[in-house]
């Protein structure tokens, strides 16, 4: 008798998830465990700080800009929901606690997969930053009176958005895996984008956001600090129910999606690929294979398309000015590197051993990877700038130079960091599934935090040069940063050239 939607299966699913987490943790060294505990403590501390510190800043800052923040809070809550949905869709429903090829021998149910994906959803710097923004800005507006009561509806909204986003992600993944699923998925995505564009073009987007029902989340937080307990308790109770319902209801599409065949992956693997003329140089030959490894991998192709278009569309929707557009290339480049760049040799998979047995210098093989990663990041960042420019209007020389310099600098910076991590910390991963990641989820969270921090700082520097009288400041800032990243790339190449280091990387990714 099928028991997949019974309480027994729910309890078993949770127990299995604990077992999978223990299996994953068993491979960690003591040093990594300590680092993970520290990272977890830092995230928890920052979350508490995002709740407490802004609340107590309201007084000293005399509630400066509070009314403006109130106006954008409902949109911010809605934005968090949209982010949760997009993240779940982009990750093929949700991330895997244990990679599929490792879990294939175990009877992992869709219940375990669903709860696992929910648990991993916060291990994403975009999720964390947005969550902290929701908490921080709201707490600043409502002030320090009864902080816990004010934070409760916000935390519940964050939980609900994540669970509901996960459910929508499974539905989208189920559609994608069906007959004509790719076409349907593209139609849905295209229509949604077209709808947003039309709303923006007809100036109906902002009025629509202003009528967002998420204003009730803010009101609930405000009631909490105003001792209006009955008014506070009602939305909080509703939110609790919403969280539970969204979590449980997500099991249905999760089961539906996970029981369908990986149609797009199978299509790619069974289709005929027309041979191309013979390459004219060793570097071109290697680059060609690496490019194919990217564009023929479902998670990479989908991730890059999302990265190329979404930040640009957000910039169009938010009508970003040129001095803020300089921050976007950093986000795009970081996201691109997180798709595969932080473990670049995973592109070769088990073919890494054969590839390394070919007579080509380690340096050429290294720079083939650098070129492919760099061109992908730069192209995605360039497209983002282009889309953002549609609404930002004609730039001044300083603005244009700053945006282009920012793209070039962050792309180089991210490639340098990603190549270093690829050589120092390789992982064996199969990038076949849309749910695959190039490194374990916890490691990915660390990488994303470090990349986001570095590239945002650089983006802000170029925001400053964008308001300079001419483009020379941007160039002056860009040159030393490019030299620094270039030097880091060369240093990593020297490391890669050491046979023992190369052998370790190859052995790990090919295992």
């Amino acid at each position: 008798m099928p028991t997949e939607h019974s309480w027994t299966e729910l309890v078993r699913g949770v127990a299995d998830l604990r077992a999978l987490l223990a299996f994953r943790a068993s491979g960690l060294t003591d040093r990594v465990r300590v680092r993970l505990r520290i990272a977890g403590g830092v995230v928890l501390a920052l979350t508490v700080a995002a709740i407490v510190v802004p609340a107590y800043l309201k007084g000293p800052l005399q509630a400066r800009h509070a009314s403006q923040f109130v106006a954008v809070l409902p949109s911010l809550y809605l934005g968090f929901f949209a982010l949760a949905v997009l993240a779940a869709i982009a990750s093929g429903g949700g991330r895997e606690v244990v990679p599929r090829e490792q879990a294939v021998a175990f009877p992992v149910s869709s219940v375990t997969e669903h709860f696992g994906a929910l648990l991993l959803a916060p291990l994403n710097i975009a999720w964390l930053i947005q969550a902290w923004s929701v908490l921080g800005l709201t707490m600043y507006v409502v002030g320090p009176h009864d902080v816990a009561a004010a934070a409760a509806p916000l935390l519940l909204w964050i939980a609900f958005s994540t669970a509901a986003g996960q459910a929508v992600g499974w539905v989208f993944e189920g559609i994608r895996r069906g007959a004509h699923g790719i076409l349907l998925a593209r139609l849905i995505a295209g229509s949604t984008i077209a709808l947003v564009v039309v709303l923006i073009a007809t100036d109906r987007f902002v009025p629509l956001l202003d009528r967002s029902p998420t204003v009730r989340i803010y009101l609930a937080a405000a009631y909490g600090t105003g001792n209006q307990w009955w008014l506070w308790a009602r939305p909080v109770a509703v939110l609790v129910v919403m969280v539970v319902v969204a979590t449980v209801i997500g099991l249905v599409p999760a089961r539906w999606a996970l029981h369908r065949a990986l149609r797009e992956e199978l299509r790619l693997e069974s289709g005929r690929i027309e041979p191309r003329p013979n390459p004219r140089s060793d570097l071109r030959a290697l680059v060609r294979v690496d490019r194919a490894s990217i564009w023929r991998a479902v998670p990479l192709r989908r991730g890059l398309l999302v990265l190329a278009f979404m930040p640009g569309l957000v910039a169009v929707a938010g009508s970003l000015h040129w001095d803020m557009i300089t921050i976007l290339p950093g986000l795009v480049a970081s996201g691109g590197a997180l798709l595969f760049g932080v473990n670049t040799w995973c592109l070769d998979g088990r073919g890494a051993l054969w590839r390394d047995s070919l007579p080509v210098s380690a340096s050429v093989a290294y720079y083939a990877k650098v070129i492919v990663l760099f061109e992908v990041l730069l192209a995605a960042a360039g497209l983002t700038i282009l889309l953002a420019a549609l609404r930002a209007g004609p730039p001044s020389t300083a603005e244009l130079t700053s945006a282009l310099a920012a793209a070039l600098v962050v792309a180089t910076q991210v490639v340098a960091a990603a190549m270093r991590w690829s050589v120092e910390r390789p992982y064996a991963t199969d990038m076949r599934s849309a749910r695959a990641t190039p490194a374990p989820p916890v490691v990915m969270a660390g990488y994303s935090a470090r990349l986001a921090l570095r590239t945002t700082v650089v983006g802000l520097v170029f925001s400053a040069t964008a308001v300079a009288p001419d483009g020379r400041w941007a160039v002056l800032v860009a040159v030393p940063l490019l030299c620094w990243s270039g030097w880091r790339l060369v240093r990593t190449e020297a490391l890669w050239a050491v046979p023992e280091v190369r052998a370790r990387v190859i052995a790990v990714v090919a295992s």
Partner: protein
Amino acid sequence: MESVERRERVRVRALWVRFGSVEAVRGIDVSAYAGRATALLGRNGAGKSTTMRVLAGVVPPTDGDVQVDGVDVRVDPLTVKRSVGYCPDVGGLVPRATPWEHLQLAARLRRMEGWETRAQDLLERFELGDAAHRVTGGFSHGMGRRLSVVLAAFHRPGVLLLDEPFDGVDPLGVEATQQVIDDAKARGAAVLISTHLRDLAMTSCEDALVLRGGSAVAALDSAELVGEAGARAYRALLD
């Protein structure tokens, strides 16, 4: 004629390979001669695949002397890689490249001209002609093994290294692999085959080296490992 056939193309002396505290290979000697095939036999973890990887230039030796056609693998790994054709024990294929793209890459890096006819011929012999333009990620294990043998033999290497070439391969694939081994021996290549399938290895090899725990425990004529008596002798060497 005898002196030409006995030309030592692979010379390994006192090879040690360490991965951290693990000693994968502990001071073994291996010789492989032109026109002859040598089987590397032994249990899992005996050091067979690591020895093959050292000879392919993929893993550097920790200690010892490793020469392929007189070239030290540590001093000039690129020249060694040009002389060697290597079929790795695991996978060995880039998952999202087609067999043809693998051959194109190998041909380019090995400076091969007019290679297309031979590539087509090899793919047909291994019954991979129909799959030449499909990505290898969708291949069965046996298809992957067969393609790995094709890639190793493609450039007619002086030293052919086949690590578990018969693993999961159907009888026709085994025949095609044995044909490749015979062809290589006929043109004077030295062949090293690492396998657990003793009977199959003995049909293609003249010499056998049995490894245990990273050390060589016996160097035998393959005739000594044939049949029931060979199986008993081999079994005794494993304990």
